[in-house]
């Protein structure tokens, strides 16, 4: 049996490459979470309060949830290439993941708004509040309580899904690790480090969201 030093294949000079992967994962997550939440709040409200929007948006919602993300990345990537405006892998990721995050967020917005009793809306309107005032001061704050824990869960899912953008050539953390694995043959070590990174981000957030959920339930 041959003994190897644990760091034999890996060098300190690999660190910037791994950090680039970490950085790319983080900016992609941040961008997609921001745009996705904005999209989701608008279409969630539309789907809840405007019946026509429910029909118009149904195909978007349906397709986004029934086609693997990998294929969505490949299709967006190749359709921009065919149109003669090739996109940076980062933007392919941002577009697909924002639209995807938008759908998941819209479901939460709908559920949150739908959970507000119509009698509370009546009470607000009977005081002379307009539709928008009621939404702003009563329905939205109430919906936010049910929305928030679920939204955090969605951001965790998004963080994990950024790993898939590697199929269109984006060097995020998992892709960076794979490159290192190919070179060093230290699969287990590199992967353990990578897994730990995702876990260290996702686990505390999911604990926090579970605790929030409990607090809101008791309120």
């Amino acid at each position, binding site marked *: 049996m041959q003994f190897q030093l644990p760091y034999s294949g890996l060098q300190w000079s690999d660190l910037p490459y791994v950090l680039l992967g970490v950085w790319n994962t983080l900016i992609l997550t941040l961008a997609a979470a921001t745009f996705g939440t904005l999209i989701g709040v608008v279409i969630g409200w539309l789907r809840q309060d405007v019946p026509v929007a429910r029909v118009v948006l149904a195909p978007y919602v349906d397709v986004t949830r029934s086609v693997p993300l990998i294929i969505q990345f490949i299709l967006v990537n190749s359709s921009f290439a065919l149109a003669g405006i090739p996109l940076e892998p980062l933007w392919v990721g941002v577009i697909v993941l924002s639209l995807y995050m938008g759908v998941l967020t819209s479901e939460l917005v709908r559920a949150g708004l739908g959970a507000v009793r119509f009698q*509370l809306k009546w*009470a607000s309107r*009977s*005081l002379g509040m307009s539709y928008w005032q009621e939404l702003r001061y009563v329905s939205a704050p109430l919906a936010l309580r049910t929305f928030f824990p679920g939204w955090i869960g969605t951001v965790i899912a998004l963080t994990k899904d950024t790993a898939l953008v590697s199929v269109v050539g984006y060097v995020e953390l998992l892709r960076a690790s794979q490159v290192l694995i190919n070179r060093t043959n230290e699969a287990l070590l590199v992967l353990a480090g990578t897994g730990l990174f995702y876990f260290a981000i996702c686990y505390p957030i999911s604990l926090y969201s579970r605790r929030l959920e409990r607090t809101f339930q008791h309120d």
Partner: protein
Amino acid sequence: MIEIENVRKSFGTLEVLKGINLSIEKGEVLCLIGGSGSGKSTLLQCINGLQSIQGGNIIVDGTNVHARDTNLNTLRQKLGIVFQQYNAFPHLTALENVALAPRVVKKQSRRDALDLAREHLDYVGLGSKADMKPSGLSGGQQQRLAIARALAMKPAYMLFDEVTSALDPELVGEVLDTLRKLKESGMTMIVVTHDVAFARESGDRVAFFDQGVICELGPARQVINDPKEERTRQFLQRVLH
């Protein structure tokens, strides 16, 4: 003055109001009694414009509630309504519950709105609960909070929709006391109630609803002590044993 002329209202094929005529004078307390499903709560919701109507007119101080060009948000400031389920805003304290509409609808300053809210909480006897959330208040307290919230908009009319029906018996008194106090102050009120004794003591007139029509209308004591209509008599016998 509120004038109700031949109002008809249906939910799908079910007609719940079959031509209602009523008028309520300034300073009057009108009680609506009748079995559940007789249409009295629906009428209140129509007066407030929360429900559409299929025929007739409801005119509040010369403004037709269901006309196209009526600004309901303005009109509703005149018409306070309190519901059976208290409907306090669960995310706001008692004080904020009362101050919200004056602030956002009447654009009062935060300070003025809070002063006004405190005044009205005192009026319904909740001065000491100002900073509590509704979840910390009893049903009777939540219902008084709802009354204070409606009063803070300085309405000309108050509509009460079975405000004691959801309460435990021992909490009914405090809410009725608040209603009596309002009557003393000269508020014009339409009170939908199952409490025939309250209607007799505090109502100026009583209207008995049966199956979507007003079966009998008259001075409170006369309608309840000495009803003219057979259906009124049967109803009163059932509720008074």
